[in-house]
């Protein structure tokens, strides 16, 4: 019983981190139909930006709790700077091409950003560890959780709820569906398609960078951050169904819980737990749990 609860809490905290990152990936795929490998790089850049900003604030003697705001701002800054540049300057050239080709473009971008972050920040580590303890600890029975982790859960829920609401309950969301379905027709209806693309990409990059920035306090930010994130968040998005917010949430939960369960019950299997779960789910739901409705073909 106690173990089940522990697995649940651990699963949730891991899932919320995953969800923030995967949400960005799924948004970008949903709107621009791009499976963005460089998502991991934006995560890493977010982490660097967040850690640098916090380090600067600490040197200015600002209260550590406030630095969470700084982390969000750092992510926003990364998105504001990098996303329009990437989308307008690079991706746009390739929209007319095959989907797989765009995956390659983002892979090339990933390689480039890998070295660019290194050139900008060097290889030495950055820390924002003070922020991690700014929210104190919460004790649940024999276990202690860090308040910051619980805050992450709230951030994840907020991000998910907000994007779901915008996409499903507002006009803006419906306009986005029109673009998703058929960009040319949406344009003919007066929708500024390229602005929708840019905003969707900005949102995606923001979420990636936010994931990175919010992780920065619990790790040492250094090269090699990006690779690990990519496949895991891909798995999450695929499990849930590409382009679906509910799907990303469910996928993150499934992966989070599966991983927590395997660490507690069968630690030797942690390495492939995610892939086994993904394979099993795809066998039963070939297009992920939440599949996108298809227009009639015949």
């Amino acid at each position: 019983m106690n173990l089940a609860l522990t697995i649940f809490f651990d699963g949730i905290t891991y899932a919320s981190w995953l969800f923030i990152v995967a949400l960005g990936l799924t948004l970008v795929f949903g709107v621009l139909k791009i499976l963005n490998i460089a998502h991991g790089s934006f995560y890493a850049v977010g982490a660097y930006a967040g850690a640098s900003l916090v380090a600067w604030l600490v040197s200015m003697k600002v209260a550590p709790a406030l630095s969470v705001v700084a982390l969000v701002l750092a992510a926003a800054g990364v998105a504001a700077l990098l996303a329009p540049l990437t989308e307008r300057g690079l991706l746009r050239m390739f929209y007319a091409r095959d989907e797989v080709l765009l995956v390659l473009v983002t892979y090339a971008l990933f390689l480039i950003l890998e070295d660019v972050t290194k050139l900008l920040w060097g290889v030495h580590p950055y820390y924002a560890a003070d922020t991690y303890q700014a929210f104190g600890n919460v004790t649940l029975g024999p276990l202690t959780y860090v308040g910051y982790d619980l805050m992450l859960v709230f951030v994840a829920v907020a991000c998910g709820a907000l994007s779901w609401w915008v996409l499903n309950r507002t006009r803006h969301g419906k306009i986005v569906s029109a673009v998703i379905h058929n960009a040319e027709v949406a344009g003919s209806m007066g929708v500024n398609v390229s602005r929708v693309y840019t905003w969707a990409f900005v949102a995606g990059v923001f979420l990636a960078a936010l994931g990175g920035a919010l992780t920065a306090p619990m790790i040492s930010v250094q090269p090699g951050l990006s690779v690990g994130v990519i496949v895991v968040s891909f798995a999450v998005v695929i499990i849930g169904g590409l382009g679906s917010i509910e799907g990303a949430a469910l996928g993150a939960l499934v992966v989070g819980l599966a991983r927590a369960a395997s660490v507690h019950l069968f630690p030797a299997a942690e390495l492939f737990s995610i892939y086994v779960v993904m394979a099993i789910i795809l066998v039963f739901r070939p297009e992920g749990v939440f599949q996108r409705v298809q227009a009639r073909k015949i």
Partner: protein
Amino acid sequence: MAPSSSSGRTAAAAAAALALLLALGWVLPRWLVSLATLAFSHGLVSLGIALMMRSGVVPFGQGLVFAAGGYAAALLFNKAGVTDILLLCAAGGVAAFLLAAPFAPLLARYRGIFFAMLSLALSMVLYGFLMKTTALGGSDGFNVTRATLFGWRAPDATVHYFLWAVTAAVTCLLAALVRIYWDSQRGLLSLGVRENELRVEYLGTSVSNVVAWNYLLAAALGGVGGALTVVTLGHIDPNFSYWTTSGEFVFVAILAGYHSVIAVMAASFLLELVRSFSSTYFPNTWQLALGLFLLLVIRFLPDGLGSLLQRLPVWRRSAA
């Protein structure tokens, strides 16, 4: 099954290509020959991917069969004492084929990104398994020594040429077979599946059968590629099955396009060459250089290297 005139032409072109490659192997510097040897053995895996692209799916997990072929050959070498390079290649192909066989009907139900990701999941499960199996060297893998050909063991001084000659021969043979397959009735059906599955089903052909067979053929190619890589490298480790390895194979296939087998080999060679030079001359920014190179290729060769080759009139017809 008398060879029709077009397959006869393909065979002739392959023989000519082989002669040229063998001759080049003599004159080119050793490092370049070794680089080309690896590029070709990797190219075979990408050739399998190109073959699958013709039926409209791109597997992101060919590391699975690459590793299967590689480990099969390496284990036969170390544990069963099979040292003949051709036997090892065949064994690699067969092992990969057999490993892929149970998954083929399953994978054939998927399309697009789901096919890609499911095949990736399979390869990552194998990766995890290999990482854990200390008997196979775990994450460090293990080494194999030099293979033989019909009982003959090449001396140190010319071993690179020996490996090159065998690789070139195997590659030319398989590439010619692939070309013949692409030009065949069945090959045309694959293209039909790529273009319009609904139509193909409504003509009475099973789409999943076509995809499954292509997956199996690609697996066999990947297995041979894995076996050749192991004998060339002398080393194998679970990275053979890691997603970045698979990703590079996909990369080459897409860089080449799915129209020409020569383009696949050329793309593989080009990628290795660019990577090698950039990592030597820009040790700190070689990924940046590689990324820029890829972007430029994608930008200016929209249909892959194949389109460039097709623009040269010489290749037009013989395109083996």
